[in-house]
């Protein structure tokens, strides 16, 4: 393989001091590139420093591995993407060198200079657009192997599994006007808006404000100086540089990605703005001709940036192809900077470049006049692309202006959204400033500040339509798509912009078409004999520039909840269980022993995560009647009732109890996982169908610590600590609620209910006293054998008792009657949520039932989700819950089962995950333990 020729450069490519340079020659920095040491000045980009040191190749292209050098010298330069330390895909023409940076080329094998895959260039003609769709079809078994080869061509840097996360931050901002783009028009818009009294956020992608003025001539620099001074004096403008407005979402919700923030890796600023002014300027368009990707071929703005900002000489002998005044100025600039300008081609007089030649670097240029000019620099100035991305996101459709050969938008394309500068038209810098100022004032007025201003005229000037010369060259550099590929796509029938884009992948790479889109459309128009206007364009989607996942994510923010009793659980070494937002004790070492304790003596479980809603108001029974499937009108003060809620489709949604604490005061409990959803559900009904109801809802889930005291000795234990409540069974029966004090803590709610099947009391105590009451109970009951029990023991006991868990023993299709809740559903109620569906269900037979199953083999606990099989092997149901019962000493299960088998005594086949089948018998009742409920009512 032929190594890339190192370019003949002067010993140093650095020029003498330039008036607008951004480098600090007093502060040298060291970095390495592909293992070699280099020097930079502070302010240098990686690429400007390497260019100054005589390097000219920064990457290998995606498909053909062609050597590539600087093209636009901006963030969107497709050829300057490098790896910096652990960070992949760094834009080398934008990123400032930091001392000690370790930079390496991407997509090279084995090295930038000797790249073996460059052999693909030789077979390039076979790798035309969409080649992979046409081959590797046969033989099929080999496709995975081909695919592995294709994958190795993936461009891009590397990430490591254990790379540090970095510190990313989010910030919210609320301003009147966001100005995206800090060139002359953008700065002026910010000034115009601020003068009207608006709070302004001015966002600039480069590290300095000024846009094209920064690398312009003395006049431009003078104007920039004035604008900067004015900005420094203005009030109400916050400037963010090295930051980019990446997205505009509905309601002027604007994302700003701040790339260099003191103390953080990056930051995402989320801005709600009254008005948005887009002043993104113009992006210079490359020109398509043979060899247009050779290192040494670059845009006129790239040459101007290198010379004026970084004092880097981009070449020694140049050819300039110019179609505009900016190009002409760069020709002059180069000459003044000591570059020999060997030829200037005037595109306005149909002079053009036919081909650029060279091995690994430009060495000569073939012109349309048939001349071959030796040169190591070819500068093109053939037109502009309007980066309308943010406007597209606001629903604006830019129109193609044939005479100007670019897309344009009006200054006020959509309510609250404004544009100024090059996006709207061409003018002198002063003209742009005048327009920007007026647009800023109008944007401020739209945001409610000031009276606006009269808009000066701004429209695009004529420009020759130049997309492609007489030869084929690259349209999309990062995707290695040539104009020939686009022609081919059109000929094959992929002849609309969307199809051709997808087929060739043009504009789909890292710069998302910022440089390539209009050339792509121009070439497609040429290939299909249509105009760009007729073709239309593809849609620019967010983000405007890529944003790191870290910045989008911000600081890791996944809060968890602990109950106030957590210190105790931790001290006891409880095994934690992640249950939605909560971390709860699964068990304290031996769940079976915990079950025995509750069944024989007394145990405590921390049930703080249970959802708790306080409902106050005289219409609460009406609300409850609407949301629960059972009746609530007759609930007496001091009584508690079990209730089930269904969604409109009759599917079981949540269950819990609700107690009437006082005349108009109710406390509702929900499942732990349903707490948030039920609150929203209640609110939703109150705010829609129930707006006339007098009910106020207060979520109290975390205001109370909740403790269930369960077991035959629970009454004895409580009698030692409870005051103000008569605990005698007649005075405080099953399904009753009382308020009183526990261990001296007042205003506790006690209800007598029992998920475990034992005599039990649920205490809701003010959260701050949760741990105290818990420990008091343990102290007071030590002689009774009291101890804690966890979720696992509770699950075993509720299963013994046949109590269902919504979402486990029911699923997304289980309507109430299929959950064994026939006894609860009151279809004679006037109305309730889900009633029509349940009436319908009540009139049929064929729905699955919830049953208890007892496997005949007592040693096998069928895992949950084991399937139940019918005679011919069809699936007739599944195990929803299963455990070994320490109380009954045999396996117990709840299952969903097809209706025709759901009769007690039927034997079904359980298919275990290990492949074995075991028989099981349908039990008489769901409860295997105390099915009469004697213990509960003791």
């Amino acid at each position, binding site marked *: 393989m032929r190594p890339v020729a190192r370019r003949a450069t002067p010993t140093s490519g650095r020029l003498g001091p330039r008036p607008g340079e951004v480098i600090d020659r007093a502060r040298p920095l060291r970095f390495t590139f592909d293992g070699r040491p280099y020097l930079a000045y502070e302010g240098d980009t990686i690429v400007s420093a390497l260019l100054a040191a005589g390097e000219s190749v920064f990457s290998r292209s995606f498909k053909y591995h062609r050597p590539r050098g600087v093209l636009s010298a901006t963030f969107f330069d497709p050829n300057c993407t490098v790896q910096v330390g652990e*960070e*992949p*895909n760094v834009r080398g023409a934008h990123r400032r060198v930091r001392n000690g940076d370790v930079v390496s080329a991407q997509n090279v094998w084995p090295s930038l200079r000797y790249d073996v895959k460059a052999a693909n260039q030789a077979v390039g*003609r*076979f790798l035309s657009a969409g080649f*992979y*769709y*046409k*081959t*590797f*079809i046969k033989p*099929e078994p080999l*496709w995975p192997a081909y695919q592995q080869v294709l*994958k190795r061509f*993936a*461009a*891009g840097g*590397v*990430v490591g*599994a*254990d*790379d540090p996360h970095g510190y*990313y931050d989010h910030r919210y901002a609320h301003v009147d006007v966001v100005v995206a783009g800090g060139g002359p028009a953008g700065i002026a818009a910010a000034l115009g808006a601020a003068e009207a009294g608006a709070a302004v956020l001015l966002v600039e992608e480069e590290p300095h404000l000024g846009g094209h003025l920064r690398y312009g001539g003395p006049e431009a620099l003078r104007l920039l100086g004035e604008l900067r001074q004015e900005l420094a004096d203005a009030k109400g403008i916050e400037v963010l540089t090295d930051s980019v407005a990446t997205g505009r*979402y*509905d309601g002027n919700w604007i994302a700003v990605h701040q790339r260099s923030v003191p103390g953080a890796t990056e930051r995402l600023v989320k801005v709600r703005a009254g008005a948005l002014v887009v002043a993104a300027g113009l992006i210079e368009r490359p020109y398509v001709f043979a060899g247009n990707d050779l290192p040494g071929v670059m845009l006129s703005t790239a040459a101007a940036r290198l010379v004026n900002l970084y004092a880097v000489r981009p070449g020694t002998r140049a050819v300039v192809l110019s179609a505009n005044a900016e190009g002409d100025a760069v020709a002059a600039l180069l000459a003044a900077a000591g570059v020999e300008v060997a030829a200037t081609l005037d595109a306005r007089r149909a002079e053009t470049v036919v081909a650029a030649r060279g091995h690994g670097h430009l060495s000569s240029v073939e012109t349309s006049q048939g001349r071959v000019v030796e040169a190591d620099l070819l500068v093109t100035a053939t037109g502009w692309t309007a980066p309308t991305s943010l406007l597209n*996101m606001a*629903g604006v459709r830019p129109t193609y202006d044939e005479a100007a050969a670019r897309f344009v938008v009006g200054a006020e394309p959509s309510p609250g959204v404004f544009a100024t500068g090059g996006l709207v038209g061409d003018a002198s810098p002063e003209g742009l400033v005048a327009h920007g100022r007026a647009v800023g004032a109008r944007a401020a007025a739209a945001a409610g500040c000031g009276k606006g201003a009269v808009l000066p005229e701004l429209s695009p000037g004529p420009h020759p339509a130049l997309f492609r010369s007489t030869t084929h060259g690259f349209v999309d550099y990062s995707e290695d798509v040539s104009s020939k590929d686009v022609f081919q796509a059109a000929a*094959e*029938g*992929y002849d*609309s912009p*969307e199809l051709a884009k*997808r*087929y060739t992948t043009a504009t789909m790479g890292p710069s*998302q078409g910022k440089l390539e889109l209009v050339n792509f459309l121009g070439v497609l128009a040429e290939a299909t004999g249509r105009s760009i206007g007729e073709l239309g364009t593809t849609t620019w989607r*967010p*983000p405007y520039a890529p*944003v*790191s*996942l*870290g*910045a*989008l*994510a911000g600081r890791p*923010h*996944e809060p*968890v909840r602990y109950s106030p009793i957590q210190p105790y659980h931790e001290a006891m070494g409880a095994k934690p*269980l*992640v249950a939605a937002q909560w971390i709860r004790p699964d068990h304290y070492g031996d769940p079976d022993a915990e079950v025995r304790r509750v069944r024989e003596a007394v145990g405590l479980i921390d049930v703080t995560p249970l959802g708790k809603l306080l409902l106050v108001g005289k219409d609460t029974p009406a609300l409850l009647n609407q949301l629960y499937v059972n009746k609530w009108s007759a609930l007496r003060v001091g009584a508690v009732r079990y209730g089930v809620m269904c969604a409109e489709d009759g599917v079981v949604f949540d269950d819990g109890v609700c107690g009437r604490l006082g005349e108009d005061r109710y406390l509702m409990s929900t499942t732990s996982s349903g707490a948030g959803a039920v609150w929203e559900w209640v609110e939703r009904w109150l705010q829609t169908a129930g707006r006339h109801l007098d009910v106020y809802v207060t979520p109290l889930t975390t205001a109370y610590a909740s403790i269930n005291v369960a077991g035959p000795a629970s009454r004895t234990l409580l009698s030692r600590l409870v005051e103000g409540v008569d605990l005698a069974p007649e005075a405080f029966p099953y399904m009753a609620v009382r308020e009183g004090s526990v261990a001296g803590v007042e205003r506790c709610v006690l209800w007598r209910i029992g998920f475990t099947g034992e005599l039990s009391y649920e205490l809701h105590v003010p959260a701050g006293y949760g741990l105290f009451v818990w420990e008091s109970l343990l102290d007071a009951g030590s002689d009774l054998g009291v101890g804690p029990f966890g979720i696992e023991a509770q699950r075993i006991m509720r299963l013994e008792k046949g109590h269902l868990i919504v*979402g486990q023993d029911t*699923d*997304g*299709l289980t309507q109430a009657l299929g959950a064994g809740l026939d006894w609860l559903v009151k279809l004679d109620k006037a109305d309730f949520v889900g009633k029509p569906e349940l009436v319908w269900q009540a009139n049929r037979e064929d*729905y699955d039932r919830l049953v208890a199953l007892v496997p005949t083999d007592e040693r096998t606990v069928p895992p*949950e*989700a*084991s*399937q139940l099989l019918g005679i011919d092997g069809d699936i007739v149901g599944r195990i929803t819950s299963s455990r070994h019962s320490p109380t009954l000493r045999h396996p117990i299960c709840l299952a969903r089962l097809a209706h025709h088998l759901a009769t007690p005594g039927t034997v079904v086949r359980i*298919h275990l*995950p290990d492949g074995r089948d075991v028989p099981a018998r349908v039990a008489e009742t769901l409860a295997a333990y105390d099915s009469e409920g004697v213990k509960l009512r003791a």
Partner: protein
Amino acid sequence: MAEPAATFLAEAVHHQWTAFPELSNLCYVHGRPAGSPAATVTVPVRPERAELRVWEGIEMVKVGRAQVWRRTSGAAAPHRYSAASLVRHGLTHEPWPRVWRQVPLRPAYDAVIVGAGIHGLATAYHLAKDHGITKVAVVDRGYVGGGNSGRNTAIVRSNYLTPEGVRFYDRSVKLYEALSAELNFNVMFEQRGHLTLAHNDSSLRTMVWRAEVNKLVGVDSSVIGPEEIKRLVPYLDTSTETRYPILGALYHPPGGTIRHDAVNWGYARAADALGVEIHQGVEVLAISTTGDRVRGVVTSAGEIATPIVVNCTAGHASLLCDMVGVSTPVVTHPLQAAVTEPVKAFLSAVVVSGSLHVYVSQTDRGELVFGASTDPYASYSTRGSLEFTEELASHVLALMPGISKIRLLRQWAGLCDMTPDFSPIMGITPVEGFLLDVGWGTYGFKAGPASGEAMATLVATGKTPELIAAFDLARFAEGRLVGEKGAASVGH
């Protein structure tokens, strides 16, 4: 109309592709060609003999009892793609032929299929190929594959929850495995393995449920533990200290990804080659009926007479149904997705986390493709939101903390035709001739081949194939929902 010969042909096709890879232009021949063949070649293939008989413009391959006919000339002969043709074109610069023709709209068709997404195109392809019905127009208001079929994250799998679902999607996976050869278009199906992570015991239970049903239907799925997960996806944080510890996963080796555009184009090209017409930029504005029968469609390019209209319009499905007064429970929700810049390959499997509402895979190009659940509200907006990307990023980083420096490149959205049970609606409606192939929601790309095959049979025979019988519209009125939410709400 030719009599259906699907099973016969399926068998023949199988032989054809194993025996004669270079034969492509499969067709169904009405009657026999006149005269004796110009040439007959006999090729020994295991275990039988194959015979090639050549007539003017037509040839037949006979393998055992099966025979396959193909046209060897004429406009409908598609140009064959292969490595050899790529080389030939590279050398000769001979232009490639069009993938599908551009022809004027005719006044009448045997069937009009609305929507040139995978469902419309696959249905048209199978109508022509399996049933010889070629006077078919596929019309689309935009371009081929411009709807959800060009916006999806291209995950193909069959690890669903209900036996009906698993059986149906499994048929599609089988068809996908042979699709590149079938269409002579590389659709880049990569069976990279599909992992659905469980972060709590209830999702672990759902994974076991799915695995058990899958196994019983004959689909390869199992629940694996953190160690095996780490081995398959080294970048996942499988430590137990995380907020969302990984307790296990449903592992489905046949699952993977495909190149969506290639599937769309491949079907369009193959259908076109068989005589189907594809009309881009033609919008259906109304459907005309006589009594309860379809008579034709009114389009932006004029009226067309047809006895059959197949609704394959995904996000616009309910709008089309409104045109004939068919009521469905379909509600359109946006579904967003996003892609990053490329990085070198580090993730081979598809990873889904239901609890974290995110899934991710890495393309051959090195980009990470992300998706999530639908937006919670009904809408026809495809603009996307910032919140989506923020949540996506934080959840992906919770799973793979090492990749925070990768940059998000592009986000987009499609319009999903959601049903209450997360299963599709395929089949007849109260309006005769108006057929539904909708309700594909967030999961329908993988279904294209199987539904195309079945819908074509329905159109051609008037009988609903067993495979899709459970997915009829009447199930909503009759309470026969096919609940797939547990297997389709996040991982698509």
